[in-house]
């Protein structure tokens, strides 16, 4: 081992954060399967869920390898409790109405695209490779959700109100995107990861542009939620994990 244990643990934690964001949001999106407002959207949301869960699988697999305790992606996904999950609080919120799902997807995917684009320069070749793949997929997610934010915001009074309400409700969960702690600072200084606070100006510019074109108002509140990165979650994560993990926990080792 050439890496210091502390740096190794930070990289493991960092990969969990990246993987958990995608696993939990992918699961939330999968809840739309069979419930989309129109068939094309049903398919689009399920496809986006598949991309995110695919990315989560790669990231969690790598994090298990970095940890070195023999935990597979499945072990990390199905046999950790909520307190050990490291996702952003935003991604665990219930799917809400279509406007809520779309606005959340746009806010998250705009962030994820910048994040993955920066990670293509990671000094860890496998993470850089996963990021390059994710960039291509995430572009489609930003396009799709961004177009819908504009369509809903600049649509009927009803769709406008719903999109605005979603933006108002979600805004306080965006601050967590850009928080950095010892984990991020360590991976950034090692060159394997990134300090997300550097992404905020570009993200804000992109979001403001779409929000303006959607005739929506950016919320003025500055209070921001935090806690997901250290295992403090909303009440909603536990319910999500119960559903997601029940089969694997009821039949450990089952294969199909």
């Amino acid at each position, binding site marked *: 081992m050439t890496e210091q244990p502390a740096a190794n643990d930070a990289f493991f934690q960092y990969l969990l954060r990246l993987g958990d964001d995608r696993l939990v949001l992918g699961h939330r999106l999968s809840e739309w399967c069979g419930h989309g407002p129109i068939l094309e959207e049903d398919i689009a949301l399920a496809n986006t869920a*598949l991309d995110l869960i695919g990315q989560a699988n790669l990231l969690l697999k790598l994090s298990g390898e970095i940890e070195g305790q023999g935990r597979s992606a499945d072990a990390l996904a199905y046999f950790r409790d909520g307190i050990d999950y490291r996702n952003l609080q935003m991604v665990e919120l219930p799917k809400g109405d279509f406007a809520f799902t779309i606005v959340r997807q746009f806010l998250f995917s705009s962030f994820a695209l910048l994040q993955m684009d920066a990670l293509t320069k990671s000094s860890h070749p496998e993470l850089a490779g996963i990021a390059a793949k994710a960039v291509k997929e995430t572009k489609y997610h930003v396009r799709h959700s961004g177009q819908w934010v504009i369509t809903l915001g600049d649509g009927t009074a009803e769709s406008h109100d719903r999109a605005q309400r979603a933006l108002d409700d979600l805004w306080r969960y965006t601050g967590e995107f850009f928080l950095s702690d010892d984990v991020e600072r360590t991976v950034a200084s090692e060159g394997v990861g990134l300090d997300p606070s550097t992404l905020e100006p570009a993200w804000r510019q992109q979001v403001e542009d779409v929000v303006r074109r959607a005739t929506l108002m950016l919320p003025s509140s500055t209070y921001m939620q935090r806690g997901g990165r250290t295992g403090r979650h909303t009440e909603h994560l536990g319910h999500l994990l119960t559903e997601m993990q029940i089969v694997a926990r009821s039949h450990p080792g089952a294969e199909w």
Partner: protein
Amino acid sequence: MRDTAVTRDDIFEVLSSVMDPEVPVLSVVELGIVRDVSVDESAVTVTLTPTYSGCPAMHEIEGAIRRAVLEHGCGPVVIRTTYSPAWTTDWITPAARAKLEAYGIAPPERDDDELIPLQRRVKSIRCPYCKSMNTERKSAFGSTACKAIWFCRNCAQPFEEFKAI
């Protein structure tokens, strides 16, 4: 005991008969997901790259490759997965594009530059059935991760596009 006379070209030949389960008109080689093949005394190593991170066909593809190599007496097989460089539709050859179109799937164009275009209109593509350009995109997401849904206004036929990535 494996046949030590097997060459890399022989394995590519074998893999050219392994079709993608979701686009059965293209082989895994034509699709560009076979990135490398190496042969040594102990095994044949096939390096693959998935089209999408969550492509659900990868297990099936790995199994089909393994079976094909074993059936030709060239085993044992080791399958490696690589993500770098990331797969792109640019790796689909002109011949393979023609096969896609003949099968009823519009071949991929170049990836769009604009992230969120001002106009919702999307550049139209050619209907693989009647060749009309009077087509519209119904959704950027289709029956599999790699396809978009289109509709031809000329022949009133829905069709899929292998979308650029």
